[in-house]
């Protein structure tokens, strides 16, 4: 078993805000992250797949193709966007790093060939905060 990771970047605005709560409750729970005018981050995305190398190519999967799928299915949808307003796969969800990682997993799972097993989505929101999602 080999694990292969591709690193991509994007930046976006967002806001942590529960529409079912009052302004005060949102500020109590989310602090300055609830700013109604948004704030933003540079995100670093690590996508890890796993499997055995193909005997003919020596590749687990063509990493160039992996990069294209990540760019088409994730980066183009989120880069320089407002996560709350502009991203179809986050509509109706809280735009936390946790939910963003789960959403990215689902986006990629749908578009990777069945022979490629997704292992981990590791998503840095800042250089000091990151989440990992393993699909369950």
């Amino acid at each position, binding site marked *: 078993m080999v694990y292969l990771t591709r690193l991509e970047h994007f930046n976006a605005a967002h806001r942590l805000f529960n529409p079912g709560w009052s302004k005060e409750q949102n500020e109590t729970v989310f602090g300055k992250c609830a700013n109604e005018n948004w*704030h*933003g981050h*540079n995100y670093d995305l690590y996508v890890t797949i796993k499997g055995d190398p193909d005997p003919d190519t020596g590749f687990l999967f063509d990493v160039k193709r992996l990069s294209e799928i990540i760019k088409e299915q994730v980066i183009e949808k989120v*880069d*320089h966007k407002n996560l709350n307003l502009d991203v179809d796969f986050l509509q109706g969800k809280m735009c936390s790093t946790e939910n963003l990682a789960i959403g990215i997993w689902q986006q990629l799972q749908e578009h990777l060939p069945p022979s490629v097993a997704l292992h981990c989505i590791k998503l840095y929101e*800042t250089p000091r905060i990151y989440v990992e999602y393993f699909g369950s």
Partner: protein
Amino acid sequence: MKKVAVFRKEHFNAAHRIFNPAWDDKKNFEVFGKCSNPHYHGHNYELIVKVVGEPDPETGYVMDMKVLSVIVREEVVERFDHKNLNLDTKEFGSLNPTAEHIAMVIYELLRARIDQRLDLQVRLHETERNFVEYPA
């Protein structure tokens, strides 16, 4: 005359939009691309403040780094962290919040608080790969 440079690093994150209000959306998009997204996007900004001078003979300090840290937090971090630079700050109400302009604004804010005998320069990273320095 033996001068030493001392550096303090701080960080903040913010949403912004690069946009010239004298232009229509089409021209803004042609010039600024996805950075002009009307719904904003955002960054983790990293700020490196450089202070140059001769170490004080009594303390050995060019400048007390604790004092420098407090000044940077008061003048920059509290003002810009988790804010929308276009909407939430008076500094960028009518000034396009490019990295260049943000660095120039930060320089002026800090210059007013730091001993005039000391030289000052700021470096602002908008992403890991894009950064500016002022004065050049």
